């Protein structure tokens, strides 16, 4: 693909204790896309993410940035880590400073930027996640959701081209999930490539452009979210299906095909709108 930003070419990784976490995995992430990585616990999602940022080095195969295989030199890693931002699952495991503003400044300071620029970036990153008012608050007084946002701000302040988030919705209530989804949407609109590991099939179906499904360290499928997540075989492997996809399919079985105009609803709102439109159409006839 011409616009591949990150790609795995037959990547395998084995942990020092002998666990084979990735096995001959080849995937491509395209620039500007929203990609959801799905799979059961232990499928290799986190290991894959640690390769995206150069923290882990494949035991076989290679990872490429814009089609150039990584050579894992100090300069390459510095460049890669400034372009690929990583947000881990547990905020308490990645917040270093007790002050919000200081923690967000950690990444840009590591890039060796001038203090004036760092200050501007910190302010912009906090504004992007709606945390400007907490800039001078201690991290330990924030809620779990706020800590997650600070983590995202800490990565955004490095102005990466790719944002990688490991289970960002885990532990958040519905309102916080909606707020985070809005932040992600805004970042996607600004042209950022976003990759998310999630167990939430409904979220993946509604949000992602592309989906990567991992199973026991191997690539089970990669493709358009709509296509992959409607595949009954994949649904069986994942042990679940997106609710909206299931309702759409069930409705089609009783003669109400919401997809007849070439448009498939992917979120609850889209589904409700499609059902309402269908009902109106039938009422008119």
């Amino acid at each position, binding site marked *: 693909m011409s616009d591949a930003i990150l790609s795995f070419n037959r990547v395998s990784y084995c942990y020092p204790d002998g666990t084979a976490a990735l096995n001959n995995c080849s995937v491509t992430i395209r620039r500007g896309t929203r990609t959801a990585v799905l799979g059961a616990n232990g499928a290799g999602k986190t290991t894959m993410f*640690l390769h995206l*940022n150069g*923290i882990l080095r494949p035991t076989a195969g290679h990872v490429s940035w814009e089609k150039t295989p990584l050579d894992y030199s*100090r300069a390459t890693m*510095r460049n890669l*880590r*400034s372009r690929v*931002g*990583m947000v*881990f699952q*547990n905020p*308490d*495991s*990645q*917040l*270093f*400073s*007790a*002050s919000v*503003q*200081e*923690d967000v*400044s*950690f*990444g*840009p*300071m*590591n*890039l060796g930027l001038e*203090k004036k620029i*760092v*200050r501007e970036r*910190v302010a912009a990153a906090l504004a992007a996640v709606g945390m400007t008012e907490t800039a*001078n*608050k*201690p*991290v*330990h*007084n924030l809620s779990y959701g706020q800590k997650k946002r600070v983590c995202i701000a*800490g*990565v955004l302040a*490095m102005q990466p081209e790719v944002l990688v988030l490991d289970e960002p919705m885990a532990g958040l209530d519905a309102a916080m999930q909606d707020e985070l989804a809005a932040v992600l949407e805004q970042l996607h609109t600004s042209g950022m490539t976003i990759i998310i590991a999630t167990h939430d099939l409904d979220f993946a179906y509604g949000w992602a452009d592309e989906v990567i499904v991992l199973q026991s360290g191997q690539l089970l499928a990669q493709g358009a979210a709509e296509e992959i997540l409607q595949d009954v075989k994949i649904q069986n492997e994942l042990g679940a299906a997106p609710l909206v996809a299931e309702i759409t399919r069930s409705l089609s079985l009783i003669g109400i095909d919401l997809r007849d105009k070439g448009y498939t609803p992917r979120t609850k709102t889209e589904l409700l709108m499609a059902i309402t439109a269908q009902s109106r159409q039938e009422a008119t006839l």
Partner: protein
Amino acid sequence: MLIEQSAYTNRWRRVSPAAKGIFSLCGMIAAYAATAPATACGVAAILCAVTVLGAGIPLGRYLRIAAPALFFLAASALSLAVSLKIGNTVSALSLHLSRAELEPIAHVCGRSLGGLTALLFLALTTPLSDIISLLRRCKLPDTLLDLMTLSYRTLFVFSEAVHETITAQSARMGYATITLSLRSLGGMVANLSVQVWHRSQALHLAALARNNDGALRFLEPEHPDAPRTIPLAVISGFLLVFLAAFLP
């Protein structure tokens, strides 16, 4: 937590940490330079009044925070003042209070009290992250500051983990008897040791992911009041030292 609460909510939270650090240092020098125990106690009273009235720390909270340190000070003073005198027989064993030693003991206690109130002034008006940035500007070794930063941050993470573990253990009768309590406590320590290991690994990975390759670097907070408050702190600090050193 009371110290933490005061440091973030006091009236002088936004005042330059350098100004507060200078005043605190002058307070310690003044306590040491005090010529008489009463003068040292006077310095302590001034520093206490500045903290309570100036920074707006409630007196009750101030005393609660100072209580453990005051207890240790009282215990130390007592052990210095009273000595055990052993005679020829067991019945000759007696506690002895030397009148001549009271003067230097009172002086030491006065100085300690002054030093305590000077440190409390800084601790109760300045969050530790600000103190760490101040120490960084004073060119303290990076390793020491990194340890302080991480210890301070993880203090809250682990206090939460301890609280959660105790709650989970209590819910399963983990502290019903003394034997069970000891076993639960041991289990918690073992569990926390593993957590420390995992979290340190996670922090290392997170630092690598954000391009860190050495010392932890953070943006220092800005304090626009510094040009005004630092000279003020220097003048009032020197005045305190002068009063302590030259007043009878």
